[in-house]
């Protein structure tokens, strides 16, 4: 069965990549050293590198990928659009504005910028839904998408104005955040994102069958007894929650939420419960791989995570276009 193959390959890839990511980095370490360090034994610095730096980083990368994959899959099904992605409903714009404001204000605490980004994302999504509702859109995907574009454009303008005469450090910090990175990973952040992933993911999985029905279209879904508006709003909220949580934890990481649902669907998974999980798995593997590349491609400096995922995304979509995606 195709689906079974997808799961096996997916799980195997994730495990392999995670292992590789913990073992490889800017500092070359032997396999034995890594193993001992995982157990807490051996040279103190190696233990610190493996347990305090690489392990939380890999965990955070996997969670970010899983969150983005699930969010993208849910939105693509609900909006009936193969190009929908987690940041659609204003998440990226709002989060960026929040983050830039926090960086400009010189927020010192570690949680400052992530929380500001999260708040900004939430505010933006609320505005997008309000604008769509005011335009009479109800749950019409096209109105919602347009509203997302408008809010996104406004957010971009705001960011440009904020950065125009900001101090160089502010600009640098803001740009770095917007390019995405899991380098600030620590167990607290991993736990925070895991909690949000659990809440949002469990919700989406519980209501996955509604996404199946929504994917048929507004009228068919209504004819099957689904409250289309309420159901769609629920998906938007949960998907945006996941997206906002990943953005708060790691900045903007593009393409993952767009690409991975296609992998899941192409892997023969049936029904959105399976597709959501499959997208989560594929997303986790992808971001772990991307972070690995980001760390070693130009050591000791790091590439931004968002740049690596974009580089992966572009050829992927060319392949998709050529194969003539039927979606």
């Amino acid at each position, binding site marked *: 069965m195709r689906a079974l193959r997808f799961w096996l390959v997916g799980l195997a890839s994730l495990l392999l990549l995670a292992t590789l990511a913990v073992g490889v980095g800017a500092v070359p370490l032997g396999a034995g050293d890594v193993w001992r360090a995982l157990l807490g034994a051996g040279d103190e610095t190696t233990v610190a590198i493996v347990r*305090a730096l690489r392990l939380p980083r890999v965990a955070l990368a996997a969670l970010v990928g899983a969150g983005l994959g699930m969010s993208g899959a849910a939105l693509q099904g609900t909006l009936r659009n193969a190009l929908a992605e987690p940041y659609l409903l204003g998440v990226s714009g709002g989060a960026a504005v929040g983050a830039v404001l926090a960086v400009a204000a010189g927020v010192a605490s*570690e949680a400052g910028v992530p929380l500001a980004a999260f708040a900004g994302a939430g505010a933006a999504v609320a505005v997008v839904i309000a604008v769509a509702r005011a335009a009479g859109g109800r749950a019409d995907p096209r109105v919602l998408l347009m509203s997302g574009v408008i809010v996104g454009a406004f957010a971009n303008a705001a960011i440009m104005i904020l950065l125009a005469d900001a101090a160089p450090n502010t600009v*640098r910090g803001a740009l770095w955040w917007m390019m995405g990175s899991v380098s600030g990973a*620590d167990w607290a952040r991993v736990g925070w994102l895991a909690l949000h992933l659990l809440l949002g993911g469990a919700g989406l999985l519980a209501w996955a069958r509604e996404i199946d029905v929504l994917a048929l279209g507004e009228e068919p879904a209504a004819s099957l007894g689904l409250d289309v508006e309420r159901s769609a709003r629920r998906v938007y909220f949960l998907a945006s929650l996941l997206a906002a949580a990943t953005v708060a934890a790691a900045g903007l990481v593009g393409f993952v939420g767009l690409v991975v649902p296609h992998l899941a669907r192409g892997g023969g998974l049936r029904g959105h419960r399976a597709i959501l999980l499959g997208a989560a798995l594929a997303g986790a593997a992808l971001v772990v791989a991307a972070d690995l590349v980001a760390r070693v491609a130009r050591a000791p400096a790091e590439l931004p995570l968002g740049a690596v995922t974009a580089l992966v995304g572009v050829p992927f979509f060319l392949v998709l276009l050529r194969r003539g995606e039927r979606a």
Partner: protein
Amino acid sequence: MLARRLRRLARPRFPGSIAALLAAAALACGERPAERTGYEIDDFGAVVALGAPPARIVSLNPTTTEILFALGAGPRLVGRTHWDLYPDSARRVPDMGDGLRPNVEAVLAARPDLVVLYASEDNRAAARALREAGVGTVALKVDRIAHFRRATTLLGRLVGDSARARDVIDSVTRTLDRVRAATAAAPRTTVFWHVWDAPLMTVGGGSYMTELVDIAGGRNVYGHLAAVSPTVSIEDLLRRRPQVILAGAAGRERILGSAAWRAVPAVRAGRVLVADTALVGRPGVRLGEGAAHLARLLHPELAP
């Protein structure tokens, strides 16, 4: 090579090779106290004509502002950047905003006859605009201690007091030599200088800060990198095991509040030290004091 450059850049007002030869001679023999004709070449490769000493100077860089005050040209300053706060009397000079991509209109409104810029690519457009407006413009690099010496010498010539320039340079040099001698025998303390953490940036071999660390009896673990402020990763930093981390006050707070930094032994040992940015934040006239300050931080066991 210098002469060739001069010939290429010579303005129509000072025609041909005679002027070039005179300029070359002037530069080669060192300045003469009363010599008021000739050229300097600034760090954008542009020619700066030496005419009458400027009466209205705009200095868009903290280092050059300090130097100009030390040269006694402080009363002639009609503009500074937002960050030029030394000496105290500098605060009375009108604030022109940023030193990078300055507001050219605001600068011109002060009617200066000399503008001093930091020689960064960001300032090329401003330099050109000011020159086209007929204002004498000098762009100077201020990344290393040698640049400080050169800037002081050049500015001394421009304002017509080269003797004082020499005194300033000598005074700083003496202090630096004293600090170097005092720490020469002590074992080198390895240092990581934290500049920014998202991304993680430090100072490299191209910066005067590395030189100061060296004079103060330390060694910058990233001194082998040629850049002025390279980006590195925390994992690589762990490998280099610096004994001391230098940072600004805000940077120290961020380091101590971060779980990831606790993996660094120096942080766990409590050796994150605040470097006084007023003293070491620029290669200005207080370089000597800066070196002494660092020496006290890195080698507290030696008498100041």
